[in-house]
């Protein structure tokens, strides 16, 4: 079916509005469900199921049978919080004993005989709570296969031989292949089914990223980045060191509100042009810029994909990130500026002595520095400001960030009525597919118990020492992020951090999640492959005859990692410990 061009904008707007509505409705549905839980006249038996780490286990099939007989009396499935509620009819009153059976793939089957006093309470008609049940994990061949597929996916992403999205899709497809075809050989090859896999997809993240993509697509076309860079050039008056600082601040602030890759995609070409005009080595400006982008991005919830993941998983709001991380980011940024002055100071000596800029090049630069769509920029500014207010205040009335992003995107589309084909192109569907496939792959290793095992290992290492745990999370994340793509790494670490947060006294401040944010983002500065923004910057710089090799980046980036993570760790200590 073809949709006429006239109706396409309305169709897209309709889809975005529908998505917004669905998200709001789903939020309301949750609230409603909470209120209704436990209501009714039947005999209710309520229980909690945990794993060995004290974490709730979802998706457990719970059945109640008469002791020694196979007659099924009631059945239920545990929810995300590990709770279940078995509902019995009036005939429960005549039972002499009751057996509760719990079954879930990757755990040993467990059977509990209900104590007589609990059975009596149930028979009296009250909603009765039984003792918590602990399930013992079981390592099956599916555990090893899921782990191997996850590692393969990480390697494919790190090597870059195929597109990241394709690598994640390969991982998800292999997991489904094992889950559906494996049981034909042995049941122990089952990982999870499609319905269970979809429960691991965080739709809040997907819709937040999608909404922000639409807003970014409007902003990037206005020429604001080029204008800001040109202003930096004019303000610096040929002083290379000052130009570097201003460009770092621009890249950093932009990265706090837009994604780092878009920021560097738009900043790198104009920065190279300014460097060429001033006879400066472009890398002396680009390296500090991309480092600043990686560091400052974590100031807000929407600044980096890793923060979006962390915020959604741990329930950390926009203002929480600003209050708890921005001061640390400012301290790290000061350190980064000083570090870059030491590294690039000589190359950034006043360029005024290197010859005046020709009128032809100056004219070209001025033309590049013009705002191309002032009307769109003004409207985007108004909508952006409104979104910021909602991001900050929304938590007070349960407005999730994804809904704010979708409402902002819809308002902007309604107001400026852009070319809808361009907007469709601007929504980076491959990134959204990447996240969905990644959530499924991470879900698989959670399902088989690998993440739980990892959490146990780290838990043993740090014990109940919160300071040690914070430093281990921050530094381990930073170091690993130099070799492993930080988005899948963060997605895999989130349940580990949740487990540590639940077991280490004092960790309820969510300091470990902030440490993960610091490590995953600032670790991106440690190597060329540490962050997508680095790769994009290097790709463009190479096409302008200024290649950034792996060795070059490592030599300058890794010390920057140490400086910034150390300073941010000091802030975390002051703030939380």
């Amino acid at each position, binding site marked *: 079916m073809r949709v006429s061009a006239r109706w396409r904008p309305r169709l897209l707007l309709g889809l975005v509005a529908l998505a917004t509505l669905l998200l709001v409705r789903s939020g309301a549905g949750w609230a409603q469900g909470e209120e209704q839980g436990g209501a009714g006249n039947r005999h209710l038996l309520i229980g909690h199921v945990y794993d060995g780490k004290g974490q709730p286990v979802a998706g457990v099939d719970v059945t109640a049978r008469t002791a020694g007989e196979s007659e099924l009396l009631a059945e239920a499935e545990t929810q995300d919080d590990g709770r279940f509620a078995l509902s019995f009819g009036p005939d429960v009153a005549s039972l002499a004993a009751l057996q509760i059976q719990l079954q879930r793939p990757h755990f040993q089957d467990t059977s509990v005989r209900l104590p007589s006093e609990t059975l009596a309470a149930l028979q009296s008609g009250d909603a009765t709570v039984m003792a918590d049940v602990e399930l013992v994990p079981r390592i099956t061949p599916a555990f090893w296969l899921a782990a191997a597929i996850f590692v393969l996916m990480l390697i494919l992403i790190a090597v*870059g031989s195929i*597109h*990241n*999205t394709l690598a994640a899709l390969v991982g998800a497809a292999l997991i489904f292949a094992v889950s559906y075809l494996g049981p034909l050989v042995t049941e122990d090859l089952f990982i999870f089914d499609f319905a269970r896999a979809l429960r691991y997809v965080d739709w809040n993240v997907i819709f937040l990223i999608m909404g922000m993509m639409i807003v970014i*697509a409007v902003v*990037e*076309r206005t020429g604001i980045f080029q204008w800001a860079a040109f202003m930096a050039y004019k303000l610096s008056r040929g002083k290379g060191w000052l130009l570097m600082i201003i460009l770092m601040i621009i890249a950093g602030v932009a990265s706090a509100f837009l994604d780092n*890759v*878009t920021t560097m*995609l*738009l900043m790198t*070409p104009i920065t*190279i*042009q300014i460097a*060429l*005009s001033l006879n400066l*080595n*472009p890398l002396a400006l680009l390296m500090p810029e991309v480092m600043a982008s990686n560091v400052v991005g974590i100031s807000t919830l929407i600044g980096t994909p890793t923060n979006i993941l962390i915020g959604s998983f741990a329930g950390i709001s926009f203002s929480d990130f600003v209050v708890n991380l921005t001061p640390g980011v400012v301290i790290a940024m000061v350190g980064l500026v000083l570090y870059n002055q030491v590294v690039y100071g000589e190359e950034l000596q006043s360029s005024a002595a290197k010859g005046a800029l*020709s009128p*032809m*090049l100056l004219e*070209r630069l001025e033309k*590049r520095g013009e705002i191309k769509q002032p009307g769109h920029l003004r409207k985007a500014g108004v909508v952006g400001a409104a979104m910021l207010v909602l991001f900050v205040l929304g938590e007070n009335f349960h407005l999730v960030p994804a809904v704010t992003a979708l409402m902002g995107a819809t308002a902007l589309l309604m107001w400026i009525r852009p070319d809808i084909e*361009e907007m469709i*192109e*601007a929504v*980076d*569907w*491959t*990134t959204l597919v*990447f996240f969905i496939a990644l959530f499924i792959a991470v879900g698989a290793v959670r399902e088989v118990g690998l993440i739980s095992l990892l959490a146990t290992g780290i838990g043993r290492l740090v014990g109940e020492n919160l300071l040690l745990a914070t430093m281990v999370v921050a530094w381990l994340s930073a170091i690993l992020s130099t070799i492993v793509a930080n988005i899948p790494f963060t997605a895999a670490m989130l349940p580990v951090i949740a487990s540590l947060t639940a077991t280490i006294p004092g960790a309820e401040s969510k300091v470990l999640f902030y440490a993960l944010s610091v490590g995953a983002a600032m670790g991106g500065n440690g190597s060329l492959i540490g962050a*997508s923004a680095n*790769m*994009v910057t290097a*790709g*463009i710089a*190479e*096409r*302008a*005859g*200024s*290649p950034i*090799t792996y060795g070059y980046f490592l030599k300058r980036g890794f010390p920057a990692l140490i400086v910034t993570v150390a300073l941010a760790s000091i802030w975390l200590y002051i703030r939380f410990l």
Partner: protein
Amino acid sequence: MSGIVCPIRGGAASRSTIDKAIAIAQETGLPVYFLYVLDLGFLMHTMHVQTGTISRELRELGEFILLTAQDRAAREGVQAETVLREGEIVREAIAALCREIDADYVIMGRPVEARDRNVFTPEMLERLTRDLEAEMNATVVFAGEA
């Protein structure tokens, strides 16, 4: 039509190539055609596919790099044109421009540093040189050579 084709990428490595092209233009009186080939292949290593915006930005960058070369030639009193082509195969872009203007000279930079950082490996460059000299009767000159 005839002239000197000078493919450039910008940066320090292109300076000697541009200087060589200007020097030959001054000797022969031929115009120089600075060529920049825009290649977006590296984007497959990232998740982003906003090729519309990126190609616009890189096109601007390529034009600016060409403009700096043209500006340099103008300062030396040499007439220079700029040509920007899109595509991943630089060899074909060079050959096509040579055919279009019936080039007399092609000024190239020598591969330096690590092999994977150059557009051409020495073997590829040798093959291209052979083809250009045989097919188009153009003289291939490498920057840095007498």
